[in-house]
């Protein structure tokens, strides 16, 4: 790498870290030897670090990044692994391919920030394959910042398998700024005694278009699954939330909990699909779609909040 190239890379890294800091991220993560990370702007890999027992291996592709993260058997990673992906320019496409593997009895927590502050014509595609070995535990939280223009399309897709006694928890948050177009497609298969929880929180404005499809296949005996979705919509925003749970083994327990609050001319749709093929499995679902609860509003107004302030407190609460 030439000096100029290295300088350009540092400049991009600085700019992305600045945006990351503004988005609430901790910029100190790059300096610490004890924190694994991977940072990419568009299809440029800006920085990465592995740790003992945790391999981060990434390369640039024509349109994005292809990364492999492996946590070795029995290793428990103390500090969260930080992933930061973004496009700082107004236009661009970023395709991320992630292969994550947590070997037997390992555990790790991932914090991902996806930052597109100036997006006017941006596309971000995430394709992840996650494999959790027996007794492994993974917590993954992903927070998005799309700026104020709404010119962005985000397509996160992941296929996850959780082996016996494994635990998988994921959390997707997009509540600041515009959403643009979002099309989530997650699918998790849980083995015997495995636990999986998928949570998504999204706030849509203007003509944002939100599609969330989450599927949990309870394949192993006594597996547990929860899909929790919280969506707030205003203006002309639209959302369609599909929560699918399959109960295919004895003792499997699944629950789908979807709440969508709509304001103005927004349109929300919830499609809970429950499929039980084993008589000893049990799956329940609840979906609540509507304007803000009247009693909640009245209670807050009786505390002196204006109707606008009350809606704000309620919406912030459900998206928390």
């Amino acid at each position, binding site marked *: 790498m030439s000096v100029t190239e290295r300088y350009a890379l540092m400049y991009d890294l600085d700019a992305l870290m600045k945006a990351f800091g503004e988005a609430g991220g901790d910029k100190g993560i790059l300096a610490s030897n004890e924190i694994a990370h991977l940072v990419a702007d568009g299809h440029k890999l800006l920085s990465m670090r592995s740790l003992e027992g945790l391999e981060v291996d990434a390369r640039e592709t024509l349109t994005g990044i292809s990364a492999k993260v492996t946590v070795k058997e029995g290793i428990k990673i103390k500090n969260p692994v930080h992933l930061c992906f973004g496009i700082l320019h107004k236009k661009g496409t970023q395709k991320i391919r992630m292969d994550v593997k947590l070997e037997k009895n390992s555990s790790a927590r991932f914090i991902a920030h996806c930052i597109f502050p100036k997006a006017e014509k941006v596309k971000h595609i995430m394709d992840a394959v996650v494999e959790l070995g027996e007794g492994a535990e993974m917590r993954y939280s992903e927070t998005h910042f799309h700026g104020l223009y709404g010119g962005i399309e985000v397509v996160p897709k992941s296929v996850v398998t959780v082996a016996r006694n494994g635990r998988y928890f994921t959390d997707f948050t997009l509540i600041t700024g515009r959403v643009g177009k979002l099309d989530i497609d997650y699918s998790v298969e849980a083995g015997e005694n495995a636990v999986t929880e998928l949570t998504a929180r999204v706030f849509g404005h203007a003509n944002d278009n939100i599609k969330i499809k989450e599927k949990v296949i309870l394949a192993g005996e006594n597996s547990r699954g929860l899909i929790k979705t919280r969506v707030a919509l205003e203006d002309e925003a639209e959302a369609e939330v599909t929560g699918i749970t399959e109960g295919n083994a004895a003792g499997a327990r699944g629950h789908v909990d979807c709440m969508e609050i709509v304001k103005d001319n927004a349109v929300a749709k919830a499609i809970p699909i429950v499929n039980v093929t084993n008589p000893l499995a049990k799956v329940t679902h609840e979906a609540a779609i509507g304007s803000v609860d009247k009693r909640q509003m*009245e*209670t807050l*107004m*009786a505390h002196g*909040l204006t109707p606008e302030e009350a809606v704000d*407190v*309620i919406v912030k*609460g459900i998206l928390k």
Partner: protein
Amino acid sequence: MTSIGEAKEKVPLLEIKGVTFHAGDKGILNEFSMSMEVSEVHALLGANGTGKSTLAYLIMGCEGYSPTSGEIRFEGKAINDLRIHERAQLGITMAWQEPVRFEGISVRDYLSLKQEGTDSSGYLEMVGLSAELYLGRMVDKCLSGGERKRIELASVLALHPKLAILDEPDSGIDMLSTRDIINVINIFRENGSSVLLITHREEIALISDKASQICRGKIVCSGSPHEVAEYYKAGKCLVCDGKVCAYV
């Protein structure tokens, strides 16, 4: 003619003048009148379905609860046309008979609504809950009925209202103990708040300054708490001939 130096007529804090309220074709309040002075604790006793909560909603200004006829005045000003938050800003608030739950709102945030930065631990202790255990919890479905009611009372205490309407603070599965409730009412009193105390329980009504009994949407007896207690125990109600009141 009013001469100089003559005391002005005292304006009641709350005045309900001949309020009738119908929900659809069902009459719930019938020419209901009562008034409350500043710092007065007024117990309102009445059997199930006699219109107590409806009265509370009418005073608070809940949606769908405006008098069919009659007037509600607060500090001398008609408030019929004010919305809930405008009445709250005048100093009226209420603790609901069945308080609603909120997802994602902590007890700490709930107690400091509209007064960010204040320390609300004291209010929890006043209702018999440990601040250490409860401030970080959510005001959601995970609270028991009694815990939620105590938190509602704490939030009303935190507002330092001029008028607190307490709708059956003593009811619920996890009932507040009588001692706790009496303690809370005394704190309101010390803080100079007036309390409209809706209750079924005579021993709680007895700590009020004044009591009234409601039957079929009308006050049937008003006076000292002892007198009112005697009245309904004797089943003398002229409106229902003791049939409804007997359930109090």
